[in-house]
């Protein structure tokens, strides 16, 4: 029994595993659009049935995840067989290690590591300022509306972070804010937000993102510089005549026979880091999903 639209989308994504990424994206967007529209109209027509029953009926008409997936695969197979590509299976460990260069997730994770530094600083400042102002303003009349605005901004930022994560790390995150009742008094809305566990987890995420962002950035810059330095040593020594260490006019040089080793070491270091970055990106995405996504 599927309990939420999110769960349906996850199942659909699993069923479509191996299809063209664009097909998967289309299928998910179509299903989300349809299921949400159908839910709203069904709940309006029959307010007495529960959320779960409504979802059951809607899915019955739309088709189960495997039925829907097979419809997309069928059309994909009929129309554009040349565009579907699967990852070559059974490659060696060495192939997998160096295959990281053709993996968009690894490049996305690298970019994320850079961006996380900037967003991390911003999130941290925003969360700490908002929290402390909300607490200190609470002795004034405008304290509560301010707190409400702050918590709403956190929801917005969480959504934005989710978009960045899905785009760069490929971890599915919600695309749209959750439905909220429109005719809710603002005080009740504030109460709902304060009692929502995920708002506090989101604030915590914004605070720890500062730490993660800094670590990612430092690792990225350090390892990039080391790798490039190793690769460039032959050029620096032979062409520019610079030593590895220059101290009081005494130059220290690497011997010529070590050049291939140095270049290889530099490439190896960077490739290893790309592999690590991909893994870290997936872990980070999973953490973000736990903290930012309301179930």
């Amino acid at each position, binding site marked *: 029994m599927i309990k939420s639209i999110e769960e349906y989308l996850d199942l659909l994504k699993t069923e479509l595993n191996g299809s063209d990424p664009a097909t998967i994206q*289309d299928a998910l967007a179509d*299903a989300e*659009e*349809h299921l*949400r529209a159908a839910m709203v109209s069904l709940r309006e027509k029959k307010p007495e049935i529960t959320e779960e029953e409504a979802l059951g009926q809607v899915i019955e008409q739309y088709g189960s995840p495997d039925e*829907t997936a097979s419809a997309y695969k*069928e*059309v994909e197979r009929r129309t554009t067989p040349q565009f579907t590509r699967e990852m070559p299976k059974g490659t060696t460990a060495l192939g997998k290690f160096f295959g990281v260069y053709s993996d968009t997730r690894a490049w996305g994770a690298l970019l994320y590591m850079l961006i996380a530094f900037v967003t991390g600083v911003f999130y941290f400042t925003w969360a700490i300022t908002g929290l402390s102002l909300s607490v200190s303003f609470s002795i004034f009349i405008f304290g509560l509306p301010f707190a409400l605005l702050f918590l709403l901004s956190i929801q917005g930022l969480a959504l934005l972070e989710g978009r960045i994560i899905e785009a760069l790390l490929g971890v599915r995150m919600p695309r749209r804010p959750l439905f909220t009742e429109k005719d809710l008094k603002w005080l009740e809305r504030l109460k709902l937000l304060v009692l929502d566990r995920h708002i506090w987890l989101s604030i915590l995420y914004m605070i720890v993102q500062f730490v993660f962002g800094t670590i990612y950035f430092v690792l990225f810059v350090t390892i990039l510089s080391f790798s490039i330095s190793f690769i460039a040593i032959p050029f620096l020594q032979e062409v520019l005549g610079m030593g590895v260490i220059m101290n009081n006019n005494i130059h220290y040089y690497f011997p010529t026979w070590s050049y291939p080793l140095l270049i290889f070491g530099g490439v190896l270091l960077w490739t290893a880091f790309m592999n690590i970055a991909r893994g870290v990106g997936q872990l980070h995405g999973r953490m973000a999903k736990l903290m930012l996504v309301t179930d």
Partner: protein
Amino acid sequence: MVDSSALTKKFQKEMNAGIASLVLLSVLDKNAEPMYGYQIAKLLEEYSGDASFMKQGALYPVLHSLENSGLLESKVEPSVSGPPRRYYEITAEGRNTLALWQRVWKQMKSFVDRAIKGG
């Protein structure tokens, strides 16, 4: 033993493959305004009455493939009550193709009817 319900399902699926394109083009041709998926699904539900010919989810991939062939156009617009919606509209090329397809369908229909009746 022959599993006739599974065979019927397969038969239905194979027939749907072509008919769905014809039906979707016709619906979008008759409607003056661009329509989004759920709207189309609702309308088809109304047409089909109690019998359900295909799952609503199976309409969307057909819409995409019609769009890829240039018979439909789509644009995404935000909606008041939820996720943004993709609105589909028939193109001039789609209208020409539809006229041809409708002719094919009429010939096919009379051919099949005659074959079933036997003369």
